[in-house]
Each structure stands twice: as C-alpha cells, then as structure tokens.
C-alpha cells in the first residue's frame, strides 16, 4: 500500500471520523452538526529518534513518509531494535459497527430522542438553566506498518449529556446527567431514570448542608470508585513514567503489596463502551491487564517503547487522542473488581460515614482528590442527609490499604462528553467503573 523506506521503522494510522453534535440550551437550538473527515498520523523511527507528522490530505501520505525519512538516519539494525522487535505484526479486520453505524441514523431521530428529555427539564421549578447534548462518534481506523501490520477496526459511541443548574432562593446546585452506549437503540427507554435523577437533585438542592470536616469512612458509588481507580492508581500504572527510572522501578516492582487483600484493579480495551479499544494506535491487540490483583501490584500499561524498556509484555495501551497526536500510554476501561458483600451489607456496617454518589472530578498524585457532587451522610447503616463537600483527599498508597469492603456487582460506565487528560492530549475516551467501594479514614472537607 505504501512504500516504506529501507532501514527505518514506519507506521501509518488513518482515521475516518464521523461525529454528530446537537445541543439545545433551555429549549433553544445551539448546535447541530455532522463532522466527517479523514486524516492520518505517520511515524518514522531510526532507533534513536521518532519523527512524526499529522496530515489531513491522505493523498500526501507517501510524500510525508518520504519527507520524514529524510530527517532520519537509516539503521541497518532497525529490525533488531528492542522497540521494533517488540511491536506485533497483526493482520486483522474487526468491523463491529458496519451495520449499525451512527452515520446510518438520520439526524432528525437524534434531535427527537434528545427532545424527549425537554418536558422533564421544563417541568421542574428548580431547574433554572440547562443544556442538553446528543453526541455520537464513529471512528474507522486503519493501521499499516513497515513490519507488515495491517489492522482495520472501528469504534463507536453515542449518548446524551444534560447539564442542569438548580436554584431555590439563595441555594444553587449543578449536576450532569449522562448516558452512553455503543448503539443508538440502547438510548431509548431511559426517561424514567432521568426523571428520578432530577428528583434526587431537587431534594439535594433543598436539603443539603455543609459537611462537618473530618475523617470519615466513605462509600464510593461505582462511578466514583471508577474515577478513584483511574486517577489514584491507573495513571501510576502507565509505564511511560517508569522508563529508565530506577527509583520508580523499585517503588513499583511487580509483586509488591500495594492495597488491601480484597482489591483488584483491571484495565481492558476489550470491554464495550467508551473505553473500547480492540487495537491500540500501534496496531497492538488489547489485553486484560491486572494492575492490582488481591492487593498485589500485578501489571502495568504499555506502549511498544515502554514494554521493550521494561522487558514486559505489550498490553495494547498506546493511544492518541486523534490524528494530530502520537500514541502515548493511556488507559482504556479501568475498573475495580467486585467483592462479596451485598450493597446493603456494605452500608449496614457503617455507623457514621459519607456516601459519594456522583463526583465533579478527581485527581491523583501522591495525594488523590475527589470533588463530590451528590453526597450523603451515612447514619447507622443507612443513607441519611444530603451534604455539600468541597473535596475528599487521602494519600493514595495508604488509602488503597484502607479499602475494607466491596459490593458484589460490577457497573461499567461509559461517557460521550469528557474523558481522560494526559499532558496535552485530552479528552481521550475511556471507561471506568467498579462495585460500591468502602474506604476508611478519608479526609473530608
């Protein structure tokens, strides 16, 4: 297909993107567009340096390969270079969304689906402002390498995102509702859930009081637990932070005890939803990777470069946010595996604590943070009064050992708006989730 230069490693990633975005603001249309483009990212490696280029004119790919290769120094041993050696040769076509692609659904149906939510929004006396968006994205990717890889696959997501500002007298509260699937039909029939969610937000607006700061046992909902897993530990499992760094290698040695015995955290690109990545942007097949298994550090996420450097197996986690960027090590769908308690059992064992149902954002360095939105006191094993919390914090490594209970059902969440940010590449679609997770001794402010 392309004439790859001799004595260099070269790969080409072609993206064919179809996107729809529809936005209404308090009933008025604000955006309605279909975006469709093809573009490519090219990499050339001479064993010392990588040379990248992103282009929007596919006819120029060969010219760009030739141009990049002119900067590089031909290397007769390139095939024996550890990185090049590590990269798989894959020939596969995996088109999951050929028959139910988003481009086959007329835009009017997408508008109509979104508009079904408006009466519920307009019927609330407490919703002062709202914005409702329908978003879908289908990407067909082709990957070709000088080693002989030829991979063609697709990914797809569709969903609804509604941001709402509630107000009553001087009290204000903002919350978002989001559902996302990989097919349009699954978006149908979710209005009752949305209605309940609005009611919950209204109650929260009227009843919530500032939290009494202190240390609490906190139960995280599956979505909050997923953010916690992603931010507190997932990013530390991205192996690009470890290359050539002896202190990190020692600190993050496989086999080290890092969490409580019941804790297992997984990343997998094979799970349907917004983190679905059957092949990464180096053409590598997705693997199910245990980051922590039963409290023991068990694995990390890799690109070809990091897997070669650390002499570990590829995991399929080299991802780029779009054609303008190079692949770097990223998560796909990251989740905490469920435990053996029912949800009721988990709550019943807490005399006084905090339940976090939704969060606005989270972060994770040595100290992790979660900024709760809908949160409640737990009193005598039951969810009690609504509470306003700025931030929940804890030391990551201490907190992972403070997890003492997991419910028995796994929920995976998908998203159409937002995603993961790393360096300049954001937002990258990811999924996350978990069971209900109980953590002791967290600082709540």
């Amino acid at each position, binding site marked *: 297909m392309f004439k790859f230069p001799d004595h260099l490693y070269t790969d080409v990633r072609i993206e064919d993107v179809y996107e729809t975005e529809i*936005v209404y*603001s308090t009933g*008025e*249309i*604000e955006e*309605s*567009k279909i*975006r469709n483009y093809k*573009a490519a990212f090219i990499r050339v490696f001479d064993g010392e*340096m*990588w*040379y*990248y*280029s*992103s*282009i*929007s*004119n596919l006819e120029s790919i060969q010219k760009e390969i030739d141009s990049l290769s002119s*900067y590089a120094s031909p290397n007769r041993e390139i095939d024996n270079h550890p990185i090049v050696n590590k990269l798989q040769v894959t020939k596969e076509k995996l088109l999951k969304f050929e028959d139910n692609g988003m481009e086959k659904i007329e835009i009017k149906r997408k508008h109509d689906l979104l508009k079904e939510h408006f009466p519920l929004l307009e019927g609330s006396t407490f919703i*002062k*402002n709202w*914005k409702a968006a329908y978003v879908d994205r289908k990407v067909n990717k082709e990957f070709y390498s000088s080693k002989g890889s030829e991979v063609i696959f697709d990914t797809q997501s569709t969903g609804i995102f509604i941001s709402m*500002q*509630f*107000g009553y007298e001087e*009290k*204000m*509260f*903002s919350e978002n509702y989001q559902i996302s699937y990989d097919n349009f039909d699954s978006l149908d029939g979710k209005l009752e859930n949305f209605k309940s969610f609005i009611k919950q937000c209204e109650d929260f607006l009227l009843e919530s009081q*500032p939290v009494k700061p202190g240390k609490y046992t906190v139960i995280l909902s599956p979505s909050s637990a997923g953010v916690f897993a992603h931010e507190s530990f997932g*990013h*530390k499992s991205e192996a*690009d932070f470890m*290359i*050539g*760094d*002896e*202190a*990190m290698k020692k600190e*993050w040695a496989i086999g080290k005890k890092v969490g409580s015995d019941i804790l297992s955290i997984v990343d997998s690109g094979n799970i349907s939803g917004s983190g679905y990545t059957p092949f990464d942007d180096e053409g590598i097949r997705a693997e199910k990777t245990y980051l922590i298994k039963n409290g023991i550090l068990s694995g990390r996420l890799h690109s070809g470069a990091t897997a070669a450097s650390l002499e570990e197996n590829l995991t399929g986690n080299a991802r780029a946010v779009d054609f*303008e960027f*190079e692949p770097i090590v990223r998560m796909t769908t990251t989740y905490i595996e469920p435990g053996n308690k029912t949800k009721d059992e988990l709550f019943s064992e807490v005399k006084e604590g905090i339940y976090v149902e939704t969060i*606005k*954002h*989270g*972060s994770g*360095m*040595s*100290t*992790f*943070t*979660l*900024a709760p939105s809908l949160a409640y006191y737990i009193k005598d094993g039951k969810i009690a009064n609504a509470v306003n*919390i*700025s*931030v929940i*914090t804890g030391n990551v490594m201490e907190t992972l050992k403070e997890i003492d209970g997991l419910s028995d059902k796994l929920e995976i969440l998908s998203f159409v708006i937002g995603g993961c940010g790393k*360096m300049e590449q954001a937002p990258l679609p990811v999924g996350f989730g978990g069971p209900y997770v109980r953590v002791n001794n967290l*600082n709540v*402010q």
Partner: protein
Amino acid sequence: MIKEKYINRVKKISINVTQTKIDSISHKDIEKTGLRIYKNGYIGYSGAIGRYEEEELEKRAKDSLNNKMPYQYNLGKNLRKKEDFSSEIIKEDNLVEELNELLGALRKEQPEFYFSNKFNLIEHEVRLLNDNGLDLYYKDKYIDFILIFKEKTSPNIMDGFVGLNGRKYSRKLALENINQICSAYRNKVMLPNKKVLPVVFSTDDMLPLEKFLEDLNGDRFGSKSSLLSNKRNKKIFNENFTLYQTNNPNDCIVPFFDAEGVINDNHRYPLIKEGIIVSPYTDKRISNKYNLPLTGCAAAEYDGMPNLGFPKLKIKESEKTAKELLGGEMGIFILVASGGDFTPEGNFATPVQLAFLFDGEKFIGRLPELSISSNVFHMFGDSFLGVSKDTMNPLSNNKFLIMNMEVSKI
C-alpha cells in the same frame, strides 16, 4: 445572504523530552476552515480540515440552513484589522540543537532531577472575514514549554513543573528560573505556625478564579442560577479587585477578537470593577437573551455555531511588588494544587501537592503537602491583597496573585 469565513491555522513543532533527553520530533501544519452563511435570520455552517472545494463547502453550509438555527444578531462589518505578534523566537532549524544545549546544561547543573514533557513552538493564525467588509486577522508565535521535574530518587510520577510560556526565550534566563525552582525544591522548610497566611498564585493559574468562570457565565447569571445573579451592580468584593475578560494579546496568548468578531476597548471588558459586579461574560446570543452587556466571549469550532466560550481572565495589577504586597510576611506560593474545588455556596478547599515558602522575590524552600481553604467572597474580599506589578521572571508575563487563606499541613 452573507458569507463569513472563520479560519484557524496552527503550525507546531513539538519536541518530546524524556529524562532530560530528546526522543521525538513532530511537525504539524493544519488549517481548519469554517464557512458560515447567514440568511433570513438563520445561520448555516460547514467546515473542512486542510484543502477543500469552495463550492462543496458552501453547498453544505447552505444545506445546514435547513436546521433552522436562529441567528438574528448584527454581524461585524466594515472593519479591517491585522495584528501580528509573531517573531522569530528561535530559528526553527536550530530548535533541536538549542533544546539539546538546554537539556545538556540541566543534566550538568541539576543532576539529581529528571526533566520530561514537551517543547512546543507554535504559530497560530486566526482570520474572520465576511461579505460585510469585516476582515480580522491575528497571528502569533510562542513557546509552550512545561518541563515536568522529578527527583531521581523520588517514587512519584512527578514532583513539580517549570513552565516557560510566552513569546520570549533565553537559555540563560530559562536555566536561572529552573535552577531557582530546583534549589528551592531541595530545601525542605517548615510551614509558618499561623492558621491564616498569605497564599500566592501565579496569575495564569485558573484554580482560584474557577468560581468566576462558573458563576460569571452569562447564561447561568442571566437564568438566575449563579451565586452572583442577584449581585449585579453591588459591591461585594474588595475595592482593589477588578477582573477583566481579556482578549488583549499583551495580557496573554489570545486573538484580539472573539469568534463573532467582537472587539472591546483596549481588548478588555471589566466583569468586576473595584469590587462591583459589572457584567457576566457574554456572546451575542446570551447578551440578547438576558439583556446583558456584550463582552465578546464567543468561541466556535471551525465547523460549528459561535457560542459562549470561556474567557481569559485578568485581575488588574496593583502598584506594588509582590514583596510589598506581602508586607514583610512570608507567602505560600502554590505550584501544584490538583483536585480542589468550590462548593455551590462559594467555599473553597484544595490539597496542595507542592508549595514553596516565598519572600516576595525568591522561593526559599519546599513546604510539606498542605491544605488551603477559604470562600470566594473572602478570597477576593477582605482577604484579597492584590496582584503584583512585577512578573514572576523575565521570560514570563505572569504575576503574583496574593490573598490570605487558611493553611494547614495535610
């Protein structure tokens, strides 16, 4: 029918640095063109990345008029203005060599640290032109270089960062800045034994201003769902606190016009003046919908409808240096504070992963991990000390924002 084009072009050279060495170089030159058509009170639009057929672009824009997207606002007209802030900061052919020299010096002068991340040299052009005689053009060229540092013995992913952003570059000054931060990092110091201390932010740190981004949003403000909705024209902040929405390229890297072609006097609009709330930030639709002043805060994707965007915010500087604002006290300079937030009622709390003790002129040493807290009405009210007239370093346009806050060790 009026046609309008919105063109964005970004030329970018990115050099990736891993462990104080260059490992990749990337070139990008991407032009995105949006075509808007205004007809009978509606807007249609289409867009293209790279090369495009004019007729096909126009046909798609005309077709999208069928979406019946209302747009009944006055369009910009009879104005041609061009501002070019670009200059040769570093010769592109010498970029790799220059960065290698800088990294070589860092390996020698800071052998205890690894430095990583990207050096970006970015050339950005934005043009908005229409059949009404509007033709606005902005060009800029700048370095976007945030070097993450970590001690070689540290078990952390990162320990801090040094940002070198702007239109100026000097290896000598860059090294001085990095060396000063690394020296301070190595020197562990105690937190002064006081509950309330002057806390210092760089003016490009949006964390303390996030409540304004949220609650001065014109849509929220106008719909009475903002904490500040009922406080327009009231003095609720410090009389020395004036907050601008800025499209002034002298303040930061930003085009002097918004996506609807609005240009403000001196390219700034005061949202809060001497403690009094003047206006939320608005675009034409929001201004019209809620009868609010038009502040010129529209943003648009190349192929999308102009809508209310996020403003660049600037606090008016005081006549004092950071040292004078601190008045002899030691300040707590916040370098990394990740994960904090405001509650709906305006309470603020955040962990601080990296802070330095700061005497108003230099960073003295690294403080333990902290927690800081306050409330938006205190932070910019009685507790507001001001923004310094001096910049953080000779390569930077950023100044020091100082306010008293509760500070405690985590």
